[in-house]
């Protein structure tokens, strides 16, 4: 066990102790105000205001590039270089009764011979990305959860040694495996197919590790109770352990989906035909073929970034928890 720990020193903050002890946190954060003398509260007021000022300034730096992106995506090409970020007027097109900014329509409308004469099929890239990411995520979460169940809830000889082997592969640079993997794909005839993108992404040591950490925290007595009730291993897995590790499943799902949605290297070498491009590859292709059309590119970038931001804001509770399990590569 000590070797396992030594691989990831972050584990000293054991998963069990990660959900912060709320009493302790309260004590740390909401320190009793003590004597409420006026001078003291004035000082607090100024120091907290200063804190907000600094944090607000950093937030502004974080947000500004995205503001520029959004505003540029609404501009006509002639205004892109202008120092004024605000478009003088937003050209819109009526699409099914709703006015949509022209650039966005242009990005999607690959039948429009003027704009997308090189055949950028943006809607298709979107669909490809979501299709590949969804399948890869589903398969990876399933295989990881099953393997984690085996590592965390079943006892068999040599288990911990196999787990250590799994764990140590997380340290392997993925690049070492890329060239042979590509040759394997060629010999399997999977180059330029979605299968070739999905299958290698369906197995992950990281996912197994994360799920195992979650499953270890479920009381062992449940297994015994289930066994007394005559439940088999599969039922134990499917009806008891899996529902109980829902937070872990959600976290892993988000991570995996995000990773596959943003995945770049593997699709870049695997995909040949434009109709199969995923979003990142499509964006790169867009940039290299029509890089001068900054306004359209920014519309495309906005379209690919905004779903991620919305997803993050909605699901950040799970994400933060997952990352703080100390399991994500720094």
């Amino acid at each position, binding site marked *: 066990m000590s070797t396992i720990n030594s691989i990831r020193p972050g584990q000293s903050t054991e998963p069990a102790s990660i959900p912060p002890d709320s009493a302790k946190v309260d004590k740390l954060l909401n320190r009793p105000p003590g004597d409420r003398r006026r001078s003291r509260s004035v000082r607090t007021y100024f120091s907290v205001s200063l804190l907000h000022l600094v*944090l607000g300034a950093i937030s502004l730096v974080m947000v500004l590039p995205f503001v520029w992106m959004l505003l540029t995506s609404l501009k006509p090409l002639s205004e892109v270089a202008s120092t004024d970020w605000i478009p003088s007027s937003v050209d819109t097109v009526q699409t099914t009764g709703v006015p949509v900014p022209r650039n966005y329509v242009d990005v999607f409308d690959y039948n429009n011979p003027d704009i997308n004469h090189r055949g950028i099929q943006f809607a298709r890239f979107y669909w490809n990305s979501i299709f590949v990411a969804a399948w890869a995520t589903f398969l990876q979460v399933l295989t990881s959860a099953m393997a984690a169940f085996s590592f965390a809830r079943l006892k068999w000889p040599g288990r911990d040694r196999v787990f250590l082997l799994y764990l140590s592969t997380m340290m392997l640079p993925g690049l070492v495996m890329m060239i042979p993997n590509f040759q394997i794909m060629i010999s399997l005839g999977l180059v330029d197919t979605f299968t070739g993108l999905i299958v290698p992404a369906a197995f992950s040591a990281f996912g197994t590790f994360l799920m195992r950490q979650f499953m270890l925290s479920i009381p062992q007595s449940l297994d015994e109770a289930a066994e007394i009730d005559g439940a088999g291993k599969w039922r134990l897995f499917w009806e008891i352990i899996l529902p109980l590790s829902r937070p872990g499943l959600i976290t892993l799902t988000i991570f995996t989906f995000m990773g596959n949605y943003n995945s770049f290297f593997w699709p870049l070498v695997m995909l040949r035909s434009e109709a199969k491009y995923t979003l990142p590859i499509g964006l790169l292709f867009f940039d290299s073929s029509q890089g001068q059309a900054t306004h359209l590119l920014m519309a495309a970038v906005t379209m690919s970034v905004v779903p991620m931001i919305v997803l993050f804001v909605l699901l950040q509770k799970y994400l933060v928890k997952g990352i703080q399990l100390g399991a994500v590569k720094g």
Partner: protein
Amino acid sequence: MRTRGTRTVRNVGAGVAFLMPNLLGFLVFTLVPLVFSMVLAFSNWDLKLHNQYKDKHIQFIGLDNFIQLINEPNFWKYLGNTFYLMMLLPFGIAASLIAAILLSKDLRGGSRRMWVSLLLTAIMVGSLLLLLATGQGRSGMVILMASLVASIFIGGAIGGQTIYRTLFYIPNFTAGVATMLLWKHLFNQQSGPINSVLRGPLLGLTDVVRQSPSTLVQAGLWVAAGLIALGAWFGFRRLRRAWADGDCGSSAAVFCGLFLILPAILAVPWSPLPRVGWTVLAVTIGVAIWQLIVAFRGREFYGRPWDGVGSALMTATSLMSVQLVMLGLGIVCYYLPAMAAVPDGLTPPNWLTDYDWAKPAMMLMGFWGAIGSNNMLLYLAALTNVPAELYEAADIDGASRMGKFWNITWPQLAPTTFFIVVMGVISGLQGGFEQARVMTKGGPAGSTTTLSYMIYSQGFEIGRLGYASAVSWMLFAMVLVITLFNWKFGNKYVND
């Protein structure tokens, strides 16, 4: 006894069955390729020579790939690029630590009344800004900025940590090709907003530089030299104290001390005035010897030679990065008068298309993402686990803020920091491919080509599979060294 035996047997079946899907994938896509890659690295497989149209045979050429690699200047250049980009690491970690500490502070002032007054202030300041902007008939741009600032303040006053944390983390969540393309256009020398913002202040600076005597401006180089020496002194002193306290072994201290001398050594060839470089080197070595003498005066050294090398190395390399940045800034200072003398005055750099600026540009982008990264979240979690009693005890002792940070927070966070550093180094060694491919294609003139990009271009663009595998195994060896280092020295932090 018998039931126990059968259960174990049944569990083996179930265990293997549950593991099987993942294990199969693991074998096919990790273990087999690993072995395959090892074999490849010793072969001369080149798709130009060995394909279906030519019937040459692939041969095993032993270590030839590695020998060729070591003799190839480009390999060393790309390795240097990789290390150059990794210098971002200490800055990124420091930024994420500062962000985490700021976020972990009580943002509501401790009481409801305070919170309400803060919120009111935020609303007041925000609306005042907006009113001023619109009242004075400013452009839409100013109004936009004012409303953005106002909404951030009000949001922050209401939501506190959650709002700021979300905003800080967004660059990480959207990371990928889209964000890199965005930055590519932000960095664009003509139409990019970064340069249009910089142009005004740089013109102002041009006037200042032109009016002030050039020696005054060039004194910046001397200031930088002084700061480098100061950094070295600070680092040597820290090492010496750790050495004397037994936190740091002799070999570790000496080894890490070498990193602190490195910037001074580099200052000799790089500095435009040789005497500055030599002075810095002389002072730095002098300080090192002085600290050695202080350390040796009537002391006994505890601990084994390589004890505490992890934290010492961390301190030394971080300081080294700061020193190198100082050196760079000093050199820029020296050339400022010449740069301002041209008719156009100082102009913003061409960022990604400039050989010298492409890497700093990428580091700027990286820094933007590093502030609110996963590291910040890890630090936030670790900060809540620092026992409050420690701070209370320190308060009773009347400790200063800095004292509390260096004596309580920093040591308590050491395991987290160590984890972050190790992970950062490992991913830094493998990093740089995506941004290079998207933003610069490894250029200009290979200045942003890292080892990972080299593997890509050799293996997938040129088709020298054997050679590319050899590069990837060099990379693997480096990662392995870091991992072994982590195994050997990481334990100390874990068990503390």
